[in-house]
């Protein structure tokens, strides 16, 4: 039996971020991971000879720059390559191109509607203003509005000051934005269906909401508040696949003296007299530590790996009703050659970006209605990318890796578990949709990995296959995330902490929950100086 200062349960990116900070503060830290590899949902896997897949998360933007610099991730091999805009293919052969250049987009919008081109400036300015408000909040622990503790009060006062520093009409605009549906929000700016469809998708990716659901505009922000090299809202590929992020984190962790054990997951988080004493692994190993930090989602942590009798009943009830319905799947494809899309000019840079086939908000909403009824979408939304057009290291020369994020896919099919036949039908639906816009596409497919919420749960351990470890609705955000009263990374068990995306500010390969948890833990150990102040303020 070995002793540690801290054990991190789960080697996803947040677990590794927490582990890095703790190790750097001088704690003897162990990361335990059930799979034979670390990375959680930020991994590069070789599933077809010669091909590297980003088989879960597939693009990066939200990873906080503080984390990148403080943990020296570039030194440990991480390189983010920004990608060119993208395209929406339309029924009937047309397409909307998107570029990295605002002016080019403006001209592209003007092709459809001069009014929309004009609105685009106002839209970009308004959304950026909302991003500007929220970005500094990502690396702060949410205050408890029911508490009178000085730290909570001063944090509330900070938020109040920040809010009231804005002109009155901007405050209203922001509250409206936070509560509206993306569909209603876009209606205030644009009239062209395909433009609205392109802009709306960021508001539904990963969530169990449709574009007409109130609150979806906030999710848009969740995808816009990142940056690549200070370029707000930009997205990029991690060179070598998303696993490069977690590999760099692991290297940074090991350089700080950390220890990683893979191949056997947590069986039990050990608790004695209301405080944790360590963990017992599935293979029988036991490790003791006064601190255990769970990277697993809140349901998995407390309903599977902690005895119910060790928890307050009200807490268990809250955890049970935490909403974590998965809404998406993934189809990862090895391609013999770059597919052709007749709608796109041959030299279009758009093929290097995100490509969609959903050309109206209504089609997106209809896809959501299928999810509500317990089916995968018959006409799904695809966020399709070919990272190898930017990063050739992932495949043999001339071959390509294609990543298709697919929405919607429910955690269960009409209340029953997914079967292999369901999964295959789901995969076929996706391939058929691509084939429709790229005749001959299917002949290029060398291998395809189809992942439904069932596979995401089984492999990555994301309950119900929810990629954010919990839905991003207001009843589960800020001081309500994951559950009211426990939004500050602590759990009811002393020494047991949470650092996964179930906690504020949520998922998206951001690392913020991991860093915030580390900050709280070090503060509780009276070592706050071990961490720098967050500085990503626009």
């Amino acid at each position: 039996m070995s002793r540690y200062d801290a054990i991190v349960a789960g080697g996803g990116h947040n677990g590794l971020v927490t582990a890095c900070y703790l190790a750097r503060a001088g704690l003897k830290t162990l990361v335990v991971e059930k799979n034979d590899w670390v990375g959680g949902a930020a991994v590069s896997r070789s599933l077809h000879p010669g091909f590297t897949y980003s088989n879960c998360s597939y693009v990066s933007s939200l990873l906080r720059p503080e984390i990148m610099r403080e943990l020296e991730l570039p030194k440990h091999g991480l390189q983010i390559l920004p990608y060119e805009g993208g395209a929406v293919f339309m029924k009937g052969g047309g397409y909307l191109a998107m570029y990295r250049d605002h002016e080019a987009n403006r001209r592209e919008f003007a092709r459809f509607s001069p009014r929309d081109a004009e609105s685009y400036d106002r839209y970009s300015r308004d959304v950026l203003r909302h991003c500007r408000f929220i970005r500094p909040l990502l690396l702060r622990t949410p205050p408890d509005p029911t508490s009178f503790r000085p730290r909570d009060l001063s944090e509330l006062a900070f938020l109040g000051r920040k809010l009231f520093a804005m002109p009155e009409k901007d405050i209203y605009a922001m509250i409206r934005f936070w509560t509206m549906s993306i569909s209603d929000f876009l209606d205030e700016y644009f009239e062209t269906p395909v433009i609205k469809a392109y802009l709306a998708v960021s508001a539904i990716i990963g969530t169990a909401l449709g574009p007409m659901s109130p609150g979806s505009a906030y999710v848009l922000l969740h995808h816009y508040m990142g940056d690549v090299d200070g370029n707000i809202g930009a997205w990029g590929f991690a060179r070598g696949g998303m696993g490069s992020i977690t590999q760099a984190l692991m290297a940074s962790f090991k350089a700080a003296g950390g220890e990683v054990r893979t191949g056997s997951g947590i069986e039990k988080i050990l608790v004695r007299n209301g405080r944790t004493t360590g963990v017992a692994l599935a293979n029988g190993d036991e490790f003791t530590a006064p601190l255990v930090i769970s990277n697993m989602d809140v349901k998995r942590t407390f309903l599977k790996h902690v005895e119910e009798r060790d928890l307050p009943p009200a807490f268990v009830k809250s955890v049970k009703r935490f909403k974590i319905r998965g809404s998406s799947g993934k189809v990862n494809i090895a391609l013999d050659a770059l597919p052709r899309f007749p709608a796109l000019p041959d030299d279009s840079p758009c093929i290097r970006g995100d490509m969609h086939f959903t050309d109206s908000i209504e089609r997106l909403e209809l896809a959501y209605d299928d999810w509500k009824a317990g089916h995968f979408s018959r006409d799904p939304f695809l966020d399709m990318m070919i990272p190898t057009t930017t990063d050739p290291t992932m495949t043999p020369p001339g071959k390509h890796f294609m990543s298709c994020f697919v929405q919607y896919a429910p955690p269960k099919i009409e209340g029953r578990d997914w079967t292999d036949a369901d999964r295959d039908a789901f995969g076929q639906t996706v391939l058929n949709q691509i084939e429709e816009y790229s005749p001959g596409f299917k002949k290029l497919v060398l291998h395809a990995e189809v992942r439904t919420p069932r596979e995401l749960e089984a492999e990555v351990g994301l309950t119900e296959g929810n990629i954010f470890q919990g839905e991003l609705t207001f009843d589960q955000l800020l001081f309500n995330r994951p559950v009211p009263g426990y939004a500050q990374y602590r759990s009811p068990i002393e020494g047991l902490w949470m650092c996964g995306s179930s906690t504020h500010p949520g998922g998206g390969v951001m690392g913020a929950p991991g860093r915030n948890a580390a900050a709280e833990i070090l503060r509780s150990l009276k070592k706050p100086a071990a961490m720098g102040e967050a500085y990503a303020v626009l």
Partner: protein
Amino acid sequence: MPSCDAIVIGGGINGLAAAGRLALSGAKVTLLETAPELGGMATLAHLCMGLDPRLEKSLALADHGLVWAERNVSSTALSPDGNHIVLKGAFAETVEGSLSAEDRRAWTSLRDTLLRNAALLAPFKAMPPPRLARDHGTPLLDLLRNGLALRRMGRDNLREFLRLMLINVADVLDDELADDRLKGLIAFDTVLGHHAGPRSPNSLLGLYHRISSEVNGQQGAIALPRGGVAAVIAALAGAVRARGVTIQTGARVKAITAEDDRVQSVTLESGEIFTTSLVVSALHPATTLLSLVGAPVLDTGVVRNVRNIKSRGSTAKLTLTLQGKPDFHGADLRSRLVIAPSVRAVEEAFNAVKYGAFSEAPVMELLLPQAFSTEPDLGRHTLSALVQFAPHDLRMGWVKGKPAFLKAIMKQLEHFAPGIGKQVIAADLLTPHDIAQHFGAPGGQWHHAELSVEQMLFLRPGVGLAQYATPVRGLYLASAAMHPGGGVNGSAGWNAAGHALAKGGAA
């Protein structure tokens, strides 16, 4: 040229409430209503789900003939196999019928939570929405008092209050209850009159809006006035007349004239002009500001904010004249009958309007007023129904769509009351489009402006317009589009007049 201290435009419940409050302050008030009859959209309602007590008391409506036929109308969740449950008392205090002991316990506890949370919101309805800026006359003391009430509820309750503030009703019901009939009914009540499905985030606020209101001092009650909702309007009209208000019906306003951003006069279609320095309009803000005042008088930002007001109506009203009493598998007809068999049924009924179609299996609330009457049964019965969901802009067009929608409603009714189709002598269906036409309410939306979070409190009906005042001095907004929203309660009108008076009114 007649002149008066104040002109109130619109003779619906909010116009009447505003006129009453202005008259109580001693002003000489003229109320102008386009239609030959008073009442506006309140005439569509068949039950009273909250009547502002300030109005009822100050104007002594009881002295003007308001009598309650039933102070607590029960609700029956209809089941197609006759296995109904009946909810009795204010907001379903007790449930009769086959409901598991577990659900009974869970409902009692959920009901307590919902009523407690809704009660906390009630005081906010009686005050003008605060402004989120310093030095803008925000009633800080009131806010502080209401804020303290939140703190006093205890930490666990406060946490639960905050969690449930912006949540969807479907998740809450699924978390706490098992019975589809009970869940379907509560889900239906939550979205009645709203452009939302039970699964739409924030939908629970719709229920809070209803059960934070009271009738006869009973929070969450549903009451039936003797003579129907028309009796409330009649009593209110009598009360305001008694206080000196001149009511002109058949008087359509053509323009509100302003000079130097100050109200000067109101011109009728007939050419008649009233000079006044105070106008309180209970018409939709878009009608008031864009049609009557006119965009050229206003600033760009104001016009944009008004145009962005969302007013999608999705509730239709059906009145059936029946030969004989209908039979809903033995359900007691002295009850509000609700067809909403499950949360999913309500959600799927909502799905249709997102795409400009009506629901093929609509959910609805039914009332047979004669069942509450002591008059002898003369063989003919009126069935009044509020039906969801149908859009204002039907894609197939309402000319073709109306008979098709009626057919869908009748099919659904037949499912719950076999043989009812044969009893129908006459059917009068008002779609949201009809409602918009008849009552001049854009979109045909019950609350004029949709009651969604981004159009609530200081955002209602739009940015910069929430405090009843407009950029035109002396012109105030009093419609259901204003805080705290619609329903037959008169709160918006009462608040608006109060605010106009506090601001010096005409002065």
